[in-house]
């Protein structure tokens, strides 16, 4: 959770606070970004890349959504519409009010990665929790060695943040994208995101990796990186589990000995790799 000196998005971590949809735009056919501002006007929320908020669509339900960018007074959340709550959030028009609690969870440990090469790998909507991290890397470009962003989606139409991808390239990042399926008019790479690892120019031994996407994709990606010489202590993943309290009390998000909401969602791969292979955990 946010440290005591930081401003939370509301007065209590258990009480949804009113935030207004300032803007909403469609990123792809089933993904929407909401820009939220405090409804009361004087609110603010100090978040770090990797953390998430609980967004409440009134009368429908509450779901965890990562902060995908913005500032302390304008939070961006990028939402893939998969079920009732995410669809309700995706349908909100500017001016609508959502309930918001947070920020919760651990952040990407970027400070510890200073001076190292970075591989930032995302699958599908997994680019959202990484976007603010990549923006920070761009702002502090000199603090890192080679930086590669590897991004895989199902099809070209599912690729998020086109302008950002261009901007990251201009900032000197190696941005590699691939799609699982495409017709022959598509000029870019076809293949799973793990196949992009062989294009990375960084040195495995000096590399820190940040991964976010479907669990199975992260497992394969971590394996591929290990083969490229990246130590599992330098691989970080963001996990998803169903959540309710988001404060480490209800146990809904329990994964063996850890609570994803409080101990994560960002974990060192070496601490969770075994847990993810235990059936039904």
């Amino acid at each position, binding site marked *: 959770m946010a440290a005591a000196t930081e401003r939370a998005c509301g007065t209590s971590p258990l009480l949804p606070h009113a935030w207004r949809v300032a803007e909403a735009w469609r990123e792809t056919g089933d993904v929407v970004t909401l820009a939220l501002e405090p409804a009361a006007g004087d609110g603010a929320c100090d978040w770090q890349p990797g953390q998430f908020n609980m967004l409440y669509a009134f009368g429908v339900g509450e779901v965890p959504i990562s902060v995908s960018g913005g500032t302390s007074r304008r939070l961006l959340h990028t939402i893939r519409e998969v079920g009732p709550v995410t669809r309700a959030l995706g349908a909100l028009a500017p001016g609508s009010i959502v309930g918001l609690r947070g920020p919760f969870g651990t952040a990407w440990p970027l400070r510890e990665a200073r001076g190292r090469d970075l591989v930032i790998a995302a699958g599908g*909507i997994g680019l959202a929790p990484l976007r603010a991290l990549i923006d920070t890397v761009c702002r502090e470009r000199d603090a890192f060695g080679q930086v590669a962003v590897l991004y*895989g989606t*199902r099809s070209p139409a599912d690729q998020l943040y086109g302008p950002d991808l261009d901007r990251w390239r201009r900032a000197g990042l190696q941005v590699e994208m691939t799609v699982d399926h495409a017709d*022959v008019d*598509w000029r870019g*790479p*076809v293949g*799973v995101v*793990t*196949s992009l690892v062989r294009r990375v120019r960084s040195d495995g031994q000096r590399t820190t990796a940040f991964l976010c996407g479907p669990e199975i994709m992260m497992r394969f990606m971590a394996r591929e990186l290990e083969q490229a010489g990246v130590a599992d202590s330098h691989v970080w993943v963001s996990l998803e589990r169903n959540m309710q309290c988001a404060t480490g009390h209800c146990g809904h998000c329990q994964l063996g000995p850890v609570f994803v909401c409080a101990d994560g969602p960002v974990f060192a791969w070496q601490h969770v790799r075994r847990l993810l292979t235990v059936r039904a955990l």
Partner: protein
Amino acid sequence: MKSLEELIGEHPLLAGFAPAHLALVAGCGSNTHYGPGEFLCRAGQPAQHFFLIRRGTVALELEIPGRGPFRFSTVTAGDVVGWSWLIPPYEWQFDARVLEDVSAIRFDGACLRGKCDADPALGYALMKAFAGVLVKRFMETRLQLIDVYGRRD
């Protein structure tokens, strides 16, 4: 200019090969170039070669009757195209269409098979190298089949 032996020794497939083996393998290879729209191979044709890609991009496609070509992968520098030369009936299973100018080293399959039969240590080294490529391709195909980014329902 680098010799063929040096070039193939730099390719990930053959990195770590003993110099004597590299010399044997190089004896079956030649430098080639292909322009956009050309094919390295076409499904159904005899698989007499395989290719180590040094530059450029190649799309691997299957022709689906009634639907046209389906692109299942693209390969680029550091990749390998073709293992059908290793396994009977030595026939290509897909089309390899050049998207961006390709520089590759093309190997004569029959020549290499002959050398592998005569030198089992070379044969084992080459088999291990190709097994690695095949396992990787299998894993990637499985991931594509699972459709990891699809809905969970």
